[in-house]
């Protein structure tokens, strides 16, 4: 008899304890980020697609040294350039980054000695056409200029002054 009542009491107590937990959960705000209408704040240092940075006058900082292409583990960067008469720096003609191969590791950014490359905050890259997933020089430069979120990658701040 006594164990029976003790069992009833224990059962009730544990049930009410559980109900308190879920009750508290019910009144705390939901942690859902409703995706198309809201987006998460990206942490500093988030690695989106690599983009080409421009200097104050709007010219690309890239000198076509091809260190990024060599550093890339999956060889997703294709670079073509030519040397002009009388100029020291090569002119960048083609810079194709295949976003379907890129692993967003940031080794290209780490390799670049001229701070011409940075990881952006773009992660919404889905497309219906595969051809649109190969980013060319102008698209990367455009995204580099539009970057608003501060991302610090290996000492490079995009959308602001470089720190080294």
């Amino acid at each position, binding site marked *: 008899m006594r164990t029976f009542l003790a069992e009833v009491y224990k059962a009730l107590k544990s049930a009410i304890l559980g109900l308190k937990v879920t009750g508290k959960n*019910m009144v705390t705000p*939901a942690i859902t980020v409703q995706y198309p209408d809201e987006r998460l704040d990206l942490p500093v240092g988030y690695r989106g697609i690599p983009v080409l940075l421009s200097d104050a006058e709007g010219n690309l900082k890239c000198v076509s040294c091809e260190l990024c292409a060599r550093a890339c583990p999956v060889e997703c960067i294709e670079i073509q350039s030519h040397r002009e008469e009388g100029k020291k720096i090569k002119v960048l003609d083609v810079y194709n980054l295949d976003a379907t191969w890129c692993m967003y590791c940031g080794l290209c950014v780490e390799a670049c000695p001229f701070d011409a490359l940075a990881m952006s905050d773009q992660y919404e890259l889905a497309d219906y056409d595969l051809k649109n997933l190969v980013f060319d020089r102008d698209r990367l430069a455009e995204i580099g200029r539009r970057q608003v979120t501060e991302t610090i990658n290996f000492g490079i701040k995009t959308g602001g002054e470089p720190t080294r």
Partner: protein
Amino acid sequence: MDMFTAMHSGLVQMGVPLWLANLVPPLVKALILLLFILLNCMFLIWMERKVAGHMQRRMGPMRTGPHGIIQSLADVIKLISKEDIIPNGVDRWVFVLAPIVAFAPAFAVFMVIPFGPTLIAQDLNIALIFIAALTSFVVISFLMAGWSSNNKWSLLGAMRSTAQLISYEVPLVISVVAVALLAGSLSLQEIVEAQRESFWYILVQPVGFLVFLTASLAELNRSPFDLSEAEQELVAGYNTEYSGMRWALLYLTEYANLITFAAIASTLFFGGWSGPVLPPFVWFMIKVYFFIFLVMWIRWTLPRVRVDQLMELGWKGLLPLSLVNLAFTGVYVLIR
């Protein structure tokens, strides 16, 4: 109600034969009740998803309509447009009839539930016996669905839930009998009246209420007693072979039963439609939804019990409790 006698005499004056005019008021009452059940079920499905979501720190449906309010409607439209599949080896008539046998009694119970002082379809003076009898029909429909599906797992699931349902009917009815003793009547309207004169019966029958709550969770096949729906969901359950609108009817029956038990509980333990300021129907709905919220809260909190634990709980736990409750109530009524 006055509206119905007016309708009746109006029809007779228009020259409608008497037998036909006699049929119209009950049909209209039935239609109103059906509409009540269907609208409430649609709301409840949405409420369940929202409550479940918020208890899990997420939001429920948000995109179909403001805060997902027309999600149930979207689901109904989808289910209506589905193909009606009747598998090859099933016992055709039994298969087709099972959802109807499940829904009809859930609907019929509403006949005796008082929504207000005069808002009751038929005030039977044996209402509680009527309710106890009708809520047992769900057992038959489970057996029909499980057997006719021609599927071993459906049959096993149906057998298990049949055992569960009949085991929990006994404490359910005994706890209800204790309330009938206190009120001195089996009619639900008189039980509400008796509570208006004294106090809500949950204060004198806390144990009875707990037994009723637990037993109705088992009768409704809701967590923590939902073996027939979840454990075998991956393999089969009594409603595996049902698709489209037939399944929708079974699902609807679950929620209609939920409203039924909530209505009975609020009538027996919380005072039905009585309350100070607001109109009686509003009080009734508040109490029903409070009980439903409690049931949903329990569902999303407690883990499922095993079938042997469930049988033990029913026969060795709830039955003695309800009998002791009945004994004490009887003594109290004698002394009073």
